[in-house]
C-alpha cells in the first residue's frame, strides 16, 4: 500500500481550494441579483428613451442586476400585441408598460404592487381618481402609474386666433405661474368660440373618428354633462336625460368642426394645428412640439389650457401608462425595486424634462416641476398642462363603467359614433337605441 504524506505545500493548496469553493456562492458579482427584462413604451420625443435608459441602468448597476430594456412602439399597436402575446404565452418580459385599460384586462396575470404603491403614495402624494380606476382591482394595485407616456389631452389654442375671432384671451384665462381664472370658460363659451372660428375659416380641429384623440374628447364632454352609457355598477344608462343633453350639445358643436372630422385619426388634429388651419385642438403638447420644429411662428401662438366647464363639472381626458409586473416574472423583487427607483422625484423630473413636458406623473406632489413653467415659446405655454391647480377632474372616456366594459365602449368608439350618427340626421332615439344595443353586447361576460 503506498503511503500518502500530507506536505505543507499540499495542505495550503487544498485549504485555498476549499475556501474558494465554499465562498463562491457568496461573492457579489456584477450581476449577483439576477436578470431583469423590461419593456418600456417607445417614446416619440427624440432622446426621451435615453433618460429612462440612464435611470434604469444606474439602478441596475447599483443593485447589480443584469437589465435588458426593450422599447416597444405603440404605432401599429405593437405594444398591445406584445401584451396579448405574453399573456397567452405566460412568458416574456418581467415588467411591461401597459396603456390605460390593459392592467385591468390582464389583472389576473399581474403581480400585486400594494407594497410599492403604499411607499410611493406616502412619498409623492396621492394619485388621481383615473389612476385608481384603471390600476386597482378591489384592494389590489395592479402596477405603478408610469410617468413616461402618461398625458392629458386638453385644449391647445392659438392665442391670436382665439382673441381675434372668439374674443377670448386664453393667456388671461390661464395665466402662466398662477391659478386659472376660467369661470367664464364654459360650454356656452366653447360653442360660441367654435362657431366664430368656423365662420372665420379657422375651425376647431376636433376629430370625430374612432381613434383615441376623438374618443377622449367626446368622453370628457359627456362627463361634463354627467352622462355615462354604463354606470359604476354595470347598469345600462344610455337612455337618460344626461346622455340626451350631452349628445345634443356635442352634435351642436360638431357642426362647427371640419366637415371631414368623422374620418380623422390621431395625426389629423396635429396637422390641422401645425398647418395653421385651426384655432384649437385637443392634444398633449406633441402637436406644439412639432410646430416648434416645423412652424415656429405657429408654436409661438400656442397655449395649452383647461377644458370648458359643463353642468356637472370640468373634465379633462387623462391617459396614463402603467408599469406592470407579470405574475410569471422570475425576478419580481428586482422589478419592484426598479419601479420605486423610476418613480423617485429626481427620476420623474428627468423623464419630464427629456420629453419636453409631454409626460405627466400621476402623483399629486409632482405636478409642479420646473419644466412646464419654463418650456416655450411662448414661455409658460405648458404651465397648466399637468393640471397644477387641480382645476379640472382628470378622467377617461367611458368611466365610471366597470373597466372591462368601459374598454369596449372606448375601443369601439361608441361615443363618437353616436355623435356622427345623430349629426348625419339619425333621430336621437334611434341613435340611443343603437348605442344601447351595442353596449348590451359589451356587458356579456
Amino acid at each position, binding site marked *: 500500500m503506498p503511503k500518502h504524506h500530507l506536505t505543507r505545500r499540499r495542505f495550503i493548496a487544498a485549504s485555498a481550494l476549499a475556501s474558494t469553493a465554499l465562498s463562491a456562492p457568496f461573492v457579489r458579482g456584477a450581476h449577483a441579483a439576477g436578470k431583469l427584462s423590461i419593456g418600456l413604451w417607445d417614446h416619440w420625443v427624440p432622446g426621451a428613451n435615453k433618460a429612462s435608459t440612464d435611470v434604469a441602468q444606474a439602478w441596475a448597476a447599483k443593485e447589480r442586476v443584469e437589465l435588458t430594456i426593450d422599447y416597444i412602439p405603440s404605432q401599429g*399597436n405593437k405594444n*398591445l*400585441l406584445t401584451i*396579448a402575446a405574453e399573456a*397567452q404565452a405566460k412568458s416574456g418580459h418581467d415588467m411591461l408598460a401597459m396603456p390605460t*385599460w*390593459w392592467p385591468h*384586462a390582464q389583472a389576473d396575470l399581474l403581480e400585486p404592487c400594494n407594497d410599492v404603491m403604499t411607499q410611493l403614495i406616502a412619498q409623492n402624494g396621492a394619485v388621481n381618481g383615473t389612476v385608481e380606476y384603471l390600476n386597482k382591482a378591489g384592494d389590489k394595485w395592479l402596477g405603478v402609474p408610469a410617468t413616461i407616456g402618461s398625458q392629458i389631452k386638453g385644449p391647445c389654442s392659438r392665442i391670436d386666433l382665439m382673441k381675434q375671432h372668439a374674443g377670448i384671451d386664453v393667456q388671461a384665462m390661464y395665466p402662466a405661474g398662477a391659478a386659472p381664472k376660467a369661470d367664464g370658460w364654459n360650454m356656452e363659451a366653447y360653442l360660441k368660440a367654435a362657431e366664430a372660428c368656423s365662420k372665420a375659416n379657422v375651425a376647431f380641429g376636433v376629430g370625430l*373618428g*374612432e*381613434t383615441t384623440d376623438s374618443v377622449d374628447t367626446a368622453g370628457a364632454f359627456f362627463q361634463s354633462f354627467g352622462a355615462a352609457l354604463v354606470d359604476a355598477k354595470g347598469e345600462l344608462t344610455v337612455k337618460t336625460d344626461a346622455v340626451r343633453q350631452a349628445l345634443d350639445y356635442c352634435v351642436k358643436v360638431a357642426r362647427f368642426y*371640419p*366637415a*371631414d*372630422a*368623422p*374620418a*380623422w*385619426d390621431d395625426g*389629423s388634429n396635429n*396637422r*390641422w394645428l401645425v*398647418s395653421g*388651419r385651426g384655432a384649437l385642438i385637443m392634444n398633449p403638447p406633441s402637436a406644439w412640439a412639432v410646430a416648434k420644429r416645423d412652424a415656429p411662428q405657429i408654436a409661438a401662438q400656442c397655449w395649452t389650457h383647461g377644458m370648458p366647464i359643463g353642468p356637472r363639472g370640468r373634465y379633462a381626458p387623462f391617459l396614463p401608462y402603467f408599469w406592470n409586473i407579470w405574475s410569471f416574472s422570475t425576478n419580481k423583487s428586482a422589478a419592484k425595486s426598479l419601479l420605486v427607483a423610476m418613480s423617485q422625484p429626481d427620476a420623474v423630473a428627468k423623464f419630464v424634462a427629456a420629453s419636453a413636458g409631454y409626460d405627466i406623473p400621476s402623483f399629486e406632489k409632482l405636478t409642479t416641476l420646473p419644466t412646464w413653467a419654463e418650456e416655450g415659446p411662448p414661455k409658460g405655454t405648458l404651465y397648466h398642462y399637468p393640471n397644477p391647480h387641480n382645476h379640472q377632474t382628470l378622467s377617461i372616456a367611458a368611466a365610471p363603467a366597470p373597466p*372591462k366594459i368601459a*374598454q*369596449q365602449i372606448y*375601443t*369601439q368608439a361608441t361615443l363618437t*359614433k353616436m355623435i*356622427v*350618427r345623430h349629426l348625419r340626421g339619425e333621430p336621437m332615439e334611434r341613435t340611443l337605441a*343603437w348605442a344601447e*344595443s*351595442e353596449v348590451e*353586447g359589451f356587458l*356579456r*361576460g
Partner: protein
Amino acid sequence: MADAVLTSSSPVRRATARPGAIRRFFQRKSTIAFLMALPLILLIFGLVIYPAFYAIYLSMLRKSMTSIAWMRNCSWLPDAICTRIPFGNMQFLFTRETFWMVVYQSCLFAITAVIFKAIFGFIIAHFVHNIPAKGQRKWRGMLLIPWVIPPAMSTLAWLWLFDPSYSAFNYILSGMGFGRIPWTGDASWARFSVILVNIWVGAPFFMIMYLAALKSVPDQLYEAAEIDGANWWQRIWYVTLPMMRNIIAITALFSTIVTFANFDIVRVLTAGGPLDQTHLFATWAFRLGIEGGDIPLGASVSLFMVPILAVAAVFILRDINQRGNEA
C-alpha cells in the same frame, strides 16, 4: 433471392445488411421528397395548422377566457343539446347589427374587387401580350410594381392621396373647379377607396397569370378561327376564354380567399371607419380581439370566413376537376 441467401448465411452479414436497408430507405424518391418538404411541413404546422386549431379553441372561450362559452336559449334546439355546444360567441355575433354589416361589407369588398381585378388583369394581359417580345419584359416588370410593393407601404401613399384634409386628389379636383370628395369620411366613398386600392394592388397578379395562360394558347386555334371567319370578339369568346377557364377559376379562387382575408389596406386607409362601414372580418377581429381585449370574440369573427371560403373552394376546385376529367 440472392439477398435472402446473403441475409440467412451469417450473423455478420445480417448486421452489415441493416445500414444498407437504411441507406436504401433514404435513397427512395418518396423519402427524399418528404425530407425536402419537411421544413415547409413544419413551418405550415407551426404557423398555420397549430394557430388555426388554437384559434378554434380560443373562439370557444368566454370573454374572461376562464371557461367555455356554451350556447344558450336556442329555440330551434332542445336545451340539453343547446347548452352543450361551445359556440356561444358565434351565437352572440349573430345578434349584432355590426357583425352583419361586416359580413355584407366583406362580401361586397371581395366580390367587387375580384371581378374588377379579373377584368383589368384580362385587359392589361391582352395589351402586354400584343406588345412585341423585345419590349414586353420592361412592361411586365413595370406593371408588376403595385403587386410587388408591400401593401402596407403603398397604402400609406394612397392614404396621403385620400387624406381627409390634405388629399392630393382633392387639391387637383379643386384646381379644376370641382368640389372636394370625402374619400374616407363618407361610407360610399370610403368603400370605393379601399376597393380601388385593392384592385390597384391585386390586378397585376391577374395580369401575370392571364398572360401566362394567353401564351399557352396554340396559335393554330386562332388561325383556324380566322379561316372560319371569326371576328375579334368571337376569337376571345370561343377560343381564348375556354382555353383560360381553369386559370381564371384558380386565380379567382386564390384572389377571393386573399381579398376576403385582407387586413392591411383597410387598416391603413380607414381603420374600418367611418362608423365601421369599411370593416372586413380581419380588421374587425383585430379591433375586437386585440384593441378591445376580447380575444375569444375576435377569434370567432376571424373564423367566420372559413366555412364561406371552404364552400367556395370546394365548388371551384370540383369544377376544375370535372373539366380536367372531361379533357
